[in-house]
């Protein structure tokens, strides 16, 4: 997928100025948050489970090469073919090759963020192969001209029922329906036909299990099961970091993933798929391919950013992010939005291509608190900010201002004087009204709110007076 992360500022302005998007976003606000909070309470020991999950993910990352080799050997022993891809282009090339080898004309896909990273749909189309997205949300995006997703769990969270009703009537040439159940039924009928006729299914993978060489798929709609049961060929595309050691470890993570994502105690379907169909079996694919993808992930190993590779893609961080809630997911410009995207996108694509993203956070640490694998997202964001500054990627005014501030802050008496002057100046600007409506130095900031006026004394002055006593 082409990245638009470098024009983040423009994306934000557009998102904020779009009244339909703003209405849809405020409607969605809070739903996932409430459900998650309830589901977490049901867990007897959330913190201990969370710590165990972190430990599992760290244990794998510490010896990722060995775990990958174990996975590969066990997957092969059951008849799967294991392929490796350095980047998105290689993923696309491999999938097209597999499709051609098996005479595939149509591919049904269940949600895979990695296939978005790779721009797989475009590659399939270019090779004359029809891709069909089967997750309802992804399908809606596909028939809307391959619109990019705005959330990793709920890809059309930014769209209203009205927009979807129009889209279905236009695309399916059916009378316009306004009930969500009727739209879902219509999609079921249209997609059922595709499930039955496609020769190949492409999925992502929530986890790869080293012990058994299996892939675990978690879905609610059942499209993941369809895609891996009906077509002759199944291709699972996953990042190299998705490994867990054992089925027990999978069970631990499954206590956290659905709860953190949608607030469910378990998703409707958890499928653990191993190897190819036995000849006596009446259904299931005859060929199974795994594509293990790097696409920038190895760069994170051994660095300060290694904890980011623990991510299990639950989406909790974005559901709890005030910035995400306000600008929506598409503004982030690439596959991954919200706090995890603001860390991952610059790391996978290069900081120079997305150095605005780490600033799209208030560092309130809601994301850090909810993350089921304890990724210190605010810390990683701060690291990236520092790096962007060091590599001189930020605008010169910002760098100059920071340098000036640092210079003054290191000189206490100068700092005291400067802050006294500033406080007086601001109080004069406010003219006793308690708030300043236009700040010349930051007009954007005061566009939607007032800057609270200081009361005329600095903290240090007050502190000194307090100590002296009344």
């Amino acid at each position, binding site marked *: 997928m082409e990245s638009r992360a470098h024009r983040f500022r423009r994306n934000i302005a557009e998102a904020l100025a779009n009244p339909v998007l703003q209405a849809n976003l405020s409607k969605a606000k809070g739903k996932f948050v409430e459900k998650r909070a309830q589901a977490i309470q049901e867990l007897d020991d959330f913190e201990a489970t969370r710590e165990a999950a972190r430990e599992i993910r760290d244990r794998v990352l510490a010896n990722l090469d060995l775990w990958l080799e174990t996975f590969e050997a066990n997957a092969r022993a059951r008849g799967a073919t294991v392929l490796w891809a350095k980047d998105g282009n290689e993923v696309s090339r491999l999938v097209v090759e597999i499709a051609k080898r098996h005479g595939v004309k149509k591919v049904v896909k269940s949600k895979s963020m990695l296939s978005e990273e790779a721009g797989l749909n475009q590659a399939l189309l270019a090779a004359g192969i029809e891709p069909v997205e089967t997750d*309802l949300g992804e399908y809606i995006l596909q028939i809307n001209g391959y619109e990019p997703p705005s959330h990793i769990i709920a890809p*059309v969270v930014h769209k209203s029922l009205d927009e979807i009703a129009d889209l279905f009537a236009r695309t399916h040439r059916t009378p316009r329906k306004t009930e969500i159940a009727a739209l879902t039924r219509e999609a079921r009928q249209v997609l059922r036909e595709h499930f039955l006729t496609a020769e190949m299914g492409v999925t992502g993978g929530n986890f790869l299990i080293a012990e058994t060489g299996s892939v675990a798929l978690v879905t609610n*709609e059942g499209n993941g099961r369809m895609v891996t049961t009906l077509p002759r060929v199944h291709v699972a595309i996953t990042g*190299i970091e998705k490994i867990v050691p054992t089925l027990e470890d999978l069970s*631990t993570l499954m206590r956290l993933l659905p709860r953190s994502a949608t607030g469910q105690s378990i998703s409707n379907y958890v499928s653990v798929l191993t190897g190819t169909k036995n000849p006596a079996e009446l259904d299931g694919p005859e060929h199974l391919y795994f594509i293990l993808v790097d696409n920038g992930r190895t760069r994170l190993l051994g660095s300060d950013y290694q904890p980011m590779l623990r991510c299990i893609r639950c989406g909790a961080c974005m559901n709890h992010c005030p910035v995400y809630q306000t600008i929506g997911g598409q503004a982030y410009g690439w596959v991954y939005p919200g706090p995890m995207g603001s860390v991952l996108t610059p790391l996978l694509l290069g900081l120079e291509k997305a150095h605005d993203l780490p600033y799209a956070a208030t560092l309130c640490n809601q994301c850090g608190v909810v993350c089921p694998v304890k990724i210190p997202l605010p810390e990683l964001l701060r690291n990236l900010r520092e790096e962007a500054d060091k590599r001189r990627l930020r605008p010169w005014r910002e760098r100059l201002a920071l340098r000036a501030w640092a210079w003054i802050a290191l000189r206490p008496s100068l700092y005291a004087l400067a802050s006294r002057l500033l406080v007086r100046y601001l109080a004069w600007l406010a003219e006793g009204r308690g708030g300043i409506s236009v700040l010349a130095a930051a007009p954007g900031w005061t566009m939607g709110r007032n800057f609270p006026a200081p009361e005329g004394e600095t903290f240090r002055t007050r502190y000194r007076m307090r100590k002296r006593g009344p």
Partner: protein
Amino acid sequence: MSKEQILAEIRRRLRRPQESLQAAQAALEEALQQKVRGPMPALPPDAQGLRERFLAQAERHASCCERIASIEVAPWAVRRFLDARGLPRRAVIWPSLAELDWQGAGVEVAARAAQDADLVGITACFCAIAETGSLMLCSSPQTPATVSLLPPTHIALVPASRIVATMEDAWQLARAELGMLPRAVNFVSGPSRTGDIEQTIVLGAHGPAHVHLLLIESA
């Protein structure tokens, strides 16, 4: 080759001293042997308690539950259910259930993989999980995966003796009884659903819209 390049890059980045490689390999083998469990939820210690927990959780996922005395009466329970729903007395079943007296109950069954036109699919289960109210279905020539997937209505026979506490217990049972994992293990927790449009839950996305559980008390 991408594989060698990726693995070499991982090793370079991990900067693991040569001596610790052996220790790492040993730790890996041990983890695979030990299969250590994470923190376990508090669940009822007895079979009765697990059964109630299973039923309560299954109902939360919008499965309907009915208790029947024995597996022999299952075809009659199925017939009652189909009649009550106004469905034809016809179903696709797992070949493993072909021995039951469907004919006696007047239900026409086909023991095969499911097809698009099938309205009702009947399966048993490998086991059921009390913690989450889930069925564990294992694929095999006798238990094709499509039967629980394509038809809009899925009926599952759940022997009470096959209810285990957790997913971990289910894996343990599978290792003991099956040796290796079957091609497809599916944990099914209620009818398929989607919340993609305005976060409103609709049942019956791509899989069944109804899941009816027949809990067999004596089995």
